């Protein structure tokens, strides 16, 4: 009998998706184990962000199966009809995943603290008295406790992204999805965000990170996935991925980065 720990946190099988007749995902499969950190890299338009967004239903898939911690979010029957779990059920399943966006998407009308306590209070029914210390603890962790009463517009890009990480963590997700978290940042600000992510990885958070940061992929992730043209071209442990890329397309991509 398989133990709980061997069950994948995310299991995606043969995910297909079209946008206006164009195949953006042509059968992508992935298993993410507990505590694993996977970096997904690839050129723009390779489908890596779309794939990530399919996992928590920001995009709906045309075909394939998605299971989160063994619970079925979407499945495709033998006739090729893809069905999702009912709305409420799907929301509950997706809540196991926190997400950080390229554009932060903080709530501009709320202070930093309010941004973080909003979902625990509204969704989980947590009391304000319980949510505030939790938020403060998370803000201390990302080094922004002194900003708790500021509005997001007063923060730098790096600070915004760290607040976004704290906001996602406040829902106590089992998995964190990062969609190019440093791509909208000035180079000198990426370091602080990557530090927070690295800290999270050190605490054995299960993470799936779409990124252009090769150093992060190499140093922090356990596995690297290279996507191109809507499919996974290569998948290797981080060390060997960079040392011995097997596919010509992977090599071309890595060489191009210089």
């Amino acid at each position, binding site marked *: 009998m398989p133990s709980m720990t061997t069950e994948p946190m995310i299991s995606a099988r043969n995910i297909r998706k079209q946008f206006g007749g164009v195949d953006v995902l042509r059968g992508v499969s992935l298993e993410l184990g507990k505590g694993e950190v996977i970096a997904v890299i690839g050129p723009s338009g390779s489908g890596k962000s779309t794939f990530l967004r399919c996992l*928590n239903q920001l995009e709906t898939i045309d075909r394939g199966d998605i299971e989160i911690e063994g619970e079925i979010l979407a499945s495709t029957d033998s006739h090729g009809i893809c069905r999702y779990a009912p709305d409420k059920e799907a929301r509950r399943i997706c809540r196991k995943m926190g997400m950080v966006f390229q554009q932060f998407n903080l*709530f*501009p009308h709320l202070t930093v603290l309010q941004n973080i306590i909003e979902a625990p209070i*509204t*969704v989980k029914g947590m009391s304000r008295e319980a949510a505030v210390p939790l938020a403060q603890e998370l803000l201390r962790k990302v080094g922004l406790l002194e900003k708790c009463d500021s*509005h997001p*517009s007063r923060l730098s890009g790096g600070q915004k992204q760290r607040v976004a990480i704290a*906001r996602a963590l406040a*829902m106590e997700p089992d998995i964190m999805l990062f969609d190019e978290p440093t791509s909208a940042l000035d180079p000198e600000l990426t370091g602080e965000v990557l530090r927070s992510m690295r800290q999270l990885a050190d605490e054995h958070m299960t993470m799936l990170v779409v990124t252009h940061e090769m150093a992060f992929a190499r140093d922090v992730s356990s596995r690297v996935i290279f996507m191109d043209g809507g499919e996974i071209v290569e998948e290797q442990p981080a060390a060997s991925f960079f040392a011995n890329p097997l596919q010509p397309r992977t090599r071309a991509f890595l060489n191009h980065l210089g």
Partner: protein
Amino acid sequence: MDYIFEIIGPLLQGTAVTLQVFFATLVLAVPLGLGLALVRISRFTVASRLVSGYIWLMRGTPLMLQMLFIYFALPFVPYVGIRLPDFPAAIVAFVLNYAAYFAEIFRAGIQSVGRGQYEAGQVLGLSHAQTMRRIVLPQMVKRILPPMSNETITLIKDTSLIYVLAMNDLLRAARGMVQRDFTTMPFVVAAAFYLIMTLVLTWGFLRLEKKYAVYDD
């Protein structure tokens, strides 16, 4: 000067009527307009189209005509026909008309909130309704303040249309005096009254804008 003191009482009575129509319209048309806007942008195509048609009808015909219709013609419409006294008739017409304009202002405000805000709400587990109530609508308020200021100023002046139902608002009261006393002074005083009301509105909206300036989008 004595004359001004003499007419100020009746003009204040007219102002009271004007303000009653103004506030009754505002209090009822804002929630109705918000409801219409939400239906208009909803996925329910049929309801959305119906609202579009409603807005077209209300913005496409004169408010005075709508008022006359509700007061004089509605009693004779089969089944739904109802005879309303002048004040309720005026309020119904104003509310139906202004809700259409408000709906479009609210729609613009709601639709100016980016997709990322909905996505952030979704990934945090908020339902669509919760995202609307807690995230989108509060941001809408800041964005609609300038057009709402415009619209309420228009409303305070539009209230003068109720004279067609023989109601004694500020302007009709002034006109009565002008015709009775052969002087245009009541018009000047009435203009001053409108300007004061407009000034208060402008000031109120500016204060609201300042309050919402604590954050940038």
